[in-house]
């Protein structure tokens, strides 16, 4: 049954439905409702919540709990996610599955607290040190956030890899009617024989990211990248909207895609053929569907729309590979474009 939920709280409940029992976090706007909700709710489920002394500590608690076999997560917002990057690199290196939520705000520095998408590079290009990837989802509304969160621990476990969900203050703070899926039975989850949890029967389980021999470390990196290739082959998610006959294809993710949809509908009413490709995973990035659109005769150009100075647009350009022009429209600092701004931009640009 659908109920009216605040975004952050719905995301927290969806995590519990998906099997999360341990949450470690630190207060930062605009994601505070997630740790607040988890603080009382996980106790009801027999799990645990710790308000950590810092984001650095919180992500390392995730390393401990998830490395010990539990479904564990943390959430934060941009500056806090920066603090977690070393830990995320360790989680990726040690192949510890977990979930991280980033409710992005404007930067750089302390920046602001209004919606922004300036953490795209950080989320998909590594963020921390070394060669690695998180699997990164950028859901477009609260229901989609709930659905992605619900399965995020399964995806993390499948690849033994951190999964990141990125949203912004708009998604975190708004309320919508959403349905929380049926609660997963923790007893039916696949076992984790690799987890460091004591009583090992004589064979040590080790959660570790140090490989001091360069050859071992190179092999480890190659193994990780074989896994990422598998992720790129299997996990790409995206939505195409009115692209069949589109001359201009918007590319946008998260709440911005919703604004684009409104603009597209308005432009369509005026007979302007526009559509959209909306990445749901931003790593792996929907390179192939974009490349396919670039080959289509009806597509004249792409318009990437972001709440940043232009980050995802680089991946769009790489995917389109010079076949068609790629334009960019961005607002930043917490300023959010209106559908009318996009309508005006497209009409003036034609």
């Amino acid at each position, binding site marked *: 049954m659908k109920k009216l939920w605040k975004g952050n709280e719905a995301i927290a409940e969806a995590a519990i439905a998906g099997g999360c029992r*341990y949450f*470690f976090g630190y207060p930062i706007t605009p994601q505070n409702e997630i740790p607040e909700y988890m603080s009382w709710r996980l106790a009801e489920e027999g799990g*645990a919540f*710790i308000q*950590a*002394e*810092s984001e*650095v*500590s*919180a992500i*390392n*608690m*995730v*390393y*401990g*709990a998830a*490395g*010990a*076999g*539990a479904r*564990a997560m943390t959430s934060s917002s941009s500056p806090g996610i920066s603090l977690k990057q*070393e*830990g995320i690199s*360790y989680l990726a290196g*040690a192949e510890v599955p977990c979930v991280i939520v980033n409710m992005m705000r404007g930067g750089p520095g302390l920046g602001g607290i209004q919606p922004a998408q300036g953490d795209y590079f950080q989320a998909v290009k590594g963020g921390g040190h070394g060669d690695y990837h998180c699997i990164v989802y950028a859901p477009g509304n609260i229901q989609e956030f709930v659905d992605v969160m619900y399965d995020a621990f399964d995806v993390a476990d499948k690849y033994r890899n951190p999964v990141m969900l990125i949203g912004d203050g708009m998604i975190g703070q708004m309320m919508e009617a959403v349905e929380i899926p049926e609660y997963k039975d923790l007893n039916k989850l696949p076992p984790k024989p690799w987890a*460091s*949890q*004591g*009583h*090992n029967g*004589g064979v*040590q*389980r*080790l*959660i*570790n*990211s*140090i490989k*001091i021999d360069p050859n071992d470390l190179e092999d480890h990196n190659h193994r990780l990248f074989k896994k990422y290739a598998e992720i790129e082959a299997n996990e790409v998610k995206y939505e195409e909207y009115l692209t069949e006959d589109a001359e201009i294809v918007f590319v946008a993710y998260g709440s911005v895609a919703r604004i684009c949809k409104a603009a597209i509908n308005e432009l369509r009413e005026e007979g302007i053929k526009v559509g959209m490709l909306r990445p749901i995973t931003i790593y792996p990035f929907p390179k192939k569907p974009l490349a396919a659109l670039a080959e289509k005769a009806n597509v004249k150009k792409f318009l990437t729309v972001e709440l940043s100075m232009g980050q995802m647009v680089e991946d769009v350009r790489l995917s389109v590979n010079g076949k068609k022009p790629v334009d960019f429209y961005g607002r930043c600092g917490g300023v959010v474009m209106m559908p009318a701004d996009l309508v005006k931009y497209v009409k003036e640009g034609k």
Partner: protein
Amino acid sequence: MAIVAKKPELLTDAHLHYCPGCTHGIVHRLVAEVLEELGCADAAIGIMPVGCAVFGYNYFKCDMFQAAHGRAPAVASAVKRVHPDSVVFSYQGDGDCSSIGMAETVHAAARGENFTLIFINNGIYGMTGGQMAPTTMEGVKATTCIYGRDPKVNGNPIHLSEMLATLTGPAYIERTACCDPANVRKTKAAIKKAFEIQLAKKGFSFIEVLANCPSNYHMTALESMEFVKTKAIPFYPLGVYKDITKEDK
């Protein structure tokens, strides 16, 4: 013939990577002996630091973690919350525990997390080659204070056991040394007490061991032991700083 001493089963046969004369090997053995004597070696989960003991997982057969620099208390807190019936210890040097990881140490102690932290204080960064530690004593030379630590320039050393003892959270805090057989035996007794506290679910236990670093002190092993005895112990007094089992009386 009766066996009077043998290597604990919990330790592997791997060759220690520590420098000749270093006391890490002794403390590893003490931890293993205590866990076996308490019958909980199988339930043990160890969290290793960044520093000289970074490869410590090679020497224990129990399940282990290698944690980011300073974050072992955060990792240990979470592991213990997930598996409350396991026996969790972190093993950390002075850079790890009292510098980069000070916040994690203080807050795990303040929360009274039910694990045991073994703090190896030799007053120097060993692994990275002899830089000044938060615990380096005044006048002692290090590669980042080549004329000796000058409090006016380099700040003052930290007495971590005393500091943590001001908190309500910890259950047991003791400082021991590893410089001669009598003190090694006292260290073992302290480690045993710490794990007993954990097994009784009484909360955070912390054992600070004054250790040596012959390589970076530029001393022979014996000279480094003598340094601990004559210089470190007077500055870092040995003893029990907190014991809630006594307060309970």
